[in-house]
């Protein structure tokens, strides 16, 4: 009986592995077949040789970095405050953070364009010129939109990290030792959220780098639209790009694992459950 159970166990594991690996292997071998009758890395060379690849990839990386910084600054204090002072509002905040799953990005981007195509004024006084009229303004809108899209992941990661520690006692212990709010967040809360923040940042990065709608409609030279364009016109390069981005993701996952392992096994990839 036990023997049969373990056999079935292996069967399901194997099925999972096949389901996961077959498309990956297929994509990889296809990406090597650019030159007729030989396996080569020609498609990878083509990808790296394209100046648009580097340009859009760099741009998206910069936007991702800004998004991560922005969402950390916004969600860490918010989640911390909700945990500490208004835990009964947690369901409400969670509901709000899930909104991006319900409201499509296209609605978000058109809303932003409609709202920010005009200057921000009070009476006859102009505070800010129309953000959509300048590159800086549009980039800011893009990052703001990304922060909204990444919110479910980032907030959840921070929230899970906070649940894993005794926020209240730690805060009170630090307070009674003379620490102010800034010291508590920087010296006590953030270091203990390290693994959670890293996984939140990674998820945010992945979303931003592959995002198409916002960048497309705001007309920014991002990686998402580039990927999409490439997919429309080429055969082998998109496959090579998939493998490249897959490797990057796994490298990042490995990094999280290494960082959290150093903490005596208490770290785990937050948001992963």
């Amino acid at each position, binding site marked *: 009986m036990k023997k049969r159970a373990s056999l079935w166990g292996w069967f399901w594991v194997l099925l999972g592995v096949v389901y996961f690996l077959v498309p990956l292997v297929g994509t990889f071998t296809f990406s090597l077949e650019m030159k007729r009758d030989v396996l080569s890395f020609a498609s990878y060379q083509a990808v790296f040789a394209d100046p648009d690849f580097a340009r859009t990839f760099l741009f998206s990386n910069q936007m991702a970095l800004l998004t991560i910084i922005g969402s950390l600054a916004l969600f860490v204090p918010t989640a911390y405050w909700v945990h500490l002072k208004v835990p009964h509002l947690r369901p409400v905040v969670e509901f709000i953070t899930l909104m991006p799953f319900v409201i499509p990005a296209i609605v978000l981007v058109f809303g932003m364009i409609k709202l920010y195509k005009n200057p921000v004024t009070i009476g006859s006084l102009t505070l800010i010129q129309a953000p959509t009229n300048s590159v800086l303004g549009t980039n800011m809108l893009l990052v703001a939109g990304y922060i909204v899209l990444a919110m479910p992941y980032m907030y959840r990661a921070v929230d899970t990290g906070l649940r894993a*520690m*005794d926020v209240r*006692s*730690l805060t*009170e*212990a*630090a*307070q*009674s*030792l*003379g*620490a*102010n709010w800034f*010291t508590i967040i920087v*010296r*006590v809360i953030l*270091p*203990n959220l*390290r693994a959670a923040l890293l996984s939140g940042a990674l998820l945010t990065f992945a979303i931003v780098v592959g995002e198409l709608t916002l960048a497309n409609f705001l007309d920014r030279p991002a990686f998402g639209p580039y990927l999409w364009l490439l997919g429309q016109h080429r055969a082998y390069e998109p496959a090579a790009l998939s493998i490249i981005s897959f490797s990057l993701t796994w490298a990042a996952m490995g990094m999280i694992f290494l960082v959290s392992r150093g*903490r*005596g096994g*208490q770290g785990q990839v937050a948001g992963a459950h």
Partner: protein
Amino acid sequence: MAFLDLTNIRKAFGTADAVTDFNLEVERGEFVSFLGPSGCGKTTTLRMIAGFEQPTSGEIRINGTDVTRKSPNQRNVGMVFQSYALFPNMTVAGNIGFGMKVTRRPKDEIAERVNEMLALIRMPELGDRYPYQLSGGQQQRVALTRALAVKPQVLLLDEPLSALDAKIRVELRGEIRRIQQQLGITTIYVTHDQEEALSLSDRIVVMNAGRIEQIGGPFEIYNYPSTTFVAGFVGTLNQLRCTAEDPAAGKLSFDGQIFSAGSPVTAAKGQPVLAMLRPEELRFGATEGENQLNGVVERVTFLGSIVRMYIRLGASTVTLDALNERRLTLPKVGETQTVSFPAHAVWVLPEA
């Protein structure tokens, strides 16, 4: 003026009062315990002293200074939590030195103080460990010294031993008292464990439903409880529902048997009263010159140093504690036996 002064403290959560009419004066170096069942307001009071809660009304003074509206980080009050609350990202030394680092003390001074503290808890070699590498007892020792390292005016302990197992609890209890006396620090200790409160404190504040029931030394609280609640909560207590037979002579009637309460009883003849008796004041068998009651042995529990017997007397069961001896013959369940007790061991309250 006392060192720690709590005057007319009241704390309301919504419409419910968590603490009312709380008045207490604690002298410098005194060890005072707040004892009571959960929800009695003891932790809330402690948290008000720490500054984590604001009293709805009343005043808290430490060393003559009104701290009622001061934030926790300005009170210089050390706090130890049930959950230890050590910072997981810092080593033991980092934890102990945290308070001094926050106040920007020089590095040498911090290092010196950390070593001093580690020596105090006899863990000099564990400064580089992380909290997760320590046992619960060790973690709580570190938490204690972390609170003491900043030389607080008052040390507050919120059920610090509740999460530990019995043996460590007793061991650490002794250690807390030793360190407290060595440093002469004014200490407030919150617990629901009467044994802890009795063994540690100079004075005990027994609380119930947000109010102080009695303040007194351990001996006084145990032997001369001023309310039925204190009598019932601290220690085990036998309560016999009697009627006053001859109040002036202190004679009571219980289940048709007459016994003496030693002194006159303030009740009318025939009025129901409660007679209280500690289990250790009862003796098994007939003793000359003492009250004697007959009952049936219901259960015998061997607790090691103490043998606890449950004797059925009429409608109620009394508990009797006898010290263990090797030559002791344990009574059998169902036997009819005599229990005796001196008249002065009885105290009488009118039945509510």
